[in-house]
């Protein structure tokens, strides 16, 4: 299969002045295929946000290339095509809302690319429906909760019908309910075939993804299925990361009852395991 996003030996540094540069990404090489659900994790300053900004050409590499569907992000003429393929949802809900009414905000991107009115209406309806914000369509966004605002921002990106959405710490300002709302939307869109890339500090969120890429010092240090990555508790701790709360609990229980699986990464699996084991013991 042709990759949707391909990074080839990507390096990037922030230039402080003529003499000094701070290298942030070094020789990054990976591909993301259509329909994947990928989490990128790493500690503060590891380079993951800089990396995510390379995925739709907000930043372009100093060395190496980023290809989106065969378009090079360095090619200025193709910026529009690239942005329409890969959309981004950022951390602060307030920074990405531009209009004073929810549905106008969702339509903003479409107006910029001259979508006919009828189609615009249809796309906005659809996008608001996916994020379950249709009842709020005529409301001013500034009175919404953080999770609701983030869903409006997602709807704005969805309306552009991208093939992939990058969530750059999109849940870090949200409470547990808001986070759950956004995670559900991510899952739903991925089930419909959309490629999802999420940059996060919440390990329980990364556990929702199929694949995890771990980045440290601007390089990829681990890349694999979520369950495999979370087996490396010790290495993750050395990278200032951790395994999800339920995995930590599962390990403690496993130490007492060896039959309790320690390879649990999601809350629902954890509950199932407790139920399964307590039933077995009784019978």
């Amino acid at each position, binding site marked *: 299969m042709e990759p949707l996003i391909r990074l080839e030996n990507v390096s990037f540094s922030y230039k402080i002045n003529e003499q000094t540069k701070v290298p942030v990404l070094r020789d990054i090489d990976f591909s993301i295929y259509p329909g994947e659900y990928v989490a990128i994790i790493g*500690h503060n300053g590891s380079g993951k946000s800089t990396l995510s900004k390379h995925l739709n050409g907000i930043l372009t590499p100093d060395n190496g290339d980023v290809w989106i569907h065969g378009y090079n992000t360095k090619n200025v003429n193709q910026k529009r095509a690239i942005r329409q393929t890969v959309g981004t949802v950022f951390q602060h809900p307030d920074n990405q809302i531009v209009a004073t009414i929810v549905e106008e905000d969702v339509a903003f991107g479409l107006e910029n690319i001259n979508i006919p009115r009828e189609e615009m209406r249809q796309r906005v309806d659809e996008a608001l429906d996916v994020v379950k914000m249709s009842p709020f369509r005529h409301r001013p966004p500034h009175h919404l909760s953080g999770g609701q605002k983030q869903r409006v921002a997602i709807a704005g990106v969805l309306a552009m019908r991208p093939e992939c959405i990058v969530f750059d710490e999109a849940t870090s300002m949200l409470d547990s309910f808001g986070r759950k709302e956004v995670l559900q939307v991510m899952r739903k869109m991925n089930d419909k075939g959309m490629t999802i890339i999420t940059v996060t500090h919440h390990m329980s969120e990364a556990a929702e993804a199929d694949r995890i890429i771990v980045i440290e010092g601007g390089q990829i240090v681990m890349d694999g299925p979520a369950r495999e990555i979370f087996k490396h508790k010790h290495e993750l701790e050395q990278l200032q990361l951790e395994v999800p709360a339920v995995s930590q609990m599962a390990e403690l229980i496993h130490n007492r009852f060896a039959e309790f699986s320690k390879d649990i990464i999601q809350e629902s699996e954890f509950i199932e395991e407790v139920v399964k084991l307590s039933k077995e013991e009784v019978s």
Partner: protein
Amino acid sequence: MAGRPIIEIENLSHTYMKGTPMEHVALKGANLFVEEGECVAIIGHTGSGKSTLIQHFNGLMRPESGKVLIDGEDLSNKKVNLKTLRQKVGLVFQNPEDQIFEKIIGDDIAYGPFKLGLPLKEVRERVKWAMSVVGLDFEGMIDRQTFALSGGQKRKVALAGILALKPKILVLDEPTAGLDPRSRNELLDNIKRLNKEEKLTVIFVSHNMEEVALLADRVYVMADGTDVLNGTPKEIFTDKEKLQRYHIGTPESVQVLYRLTDLGYEVKTDAFSITEAANEIIKVLACKKECSKHVQRI
């Protein structure tokens, strides 16, 4: 706790853009009492008035109606010395980039202490101390440029800049949002240590219930511009009816335990740490084991 009250807020109201079509009531009869040396969390949804409330602590906002007493000083008095007040009450905002303006990390953290007219040696000591509290390597980071920092690093610099002023009351708006797990744990441990050992009064706004459970002596719940509930984390997180009524989240461990009680398991839901929660489940499984042995014997 029979400490001295350090923050007393009574019946505080505030309306933004009063008298215009954009009028918005942010606070309506809010109350908050904090004793010296306490660690208090404020939780509540976006728009519940948390940020407006904390901006009253250091005089960024003056009481429109109601009473605000900080360390005994009435802020409705126009003659309050804001300089000493702000030295006493250190406020760290949610968006760290708003609070950083120097080019070099060391200069940014030293800005406040310099303005206090402290001698260079003392300023350097304070910067070093503040950087160690937030987990920034002194030698490696002091000369780094602030603009090339990640969001989490900026947050640490902003907090260090406030700590270097050695405030009596530390007010934090979402202190760990955007921090990686280790930075988060280290920062929380350090705040806890400052609170317990150096008697620093800490008030923090948070949506992260793990840190609320871990840090706070008491929790205030805000809704629609007023305080609707306050109590210890244990009182708040075990009151299922109120959790639902005010739509309050719980730590992940508690969430798991609630799901198990819904399935009919007898587990206590006040286990806030991973270890406590795991022990609760071990108890259930061990009990089942005992019971089944018992059944076999019969």
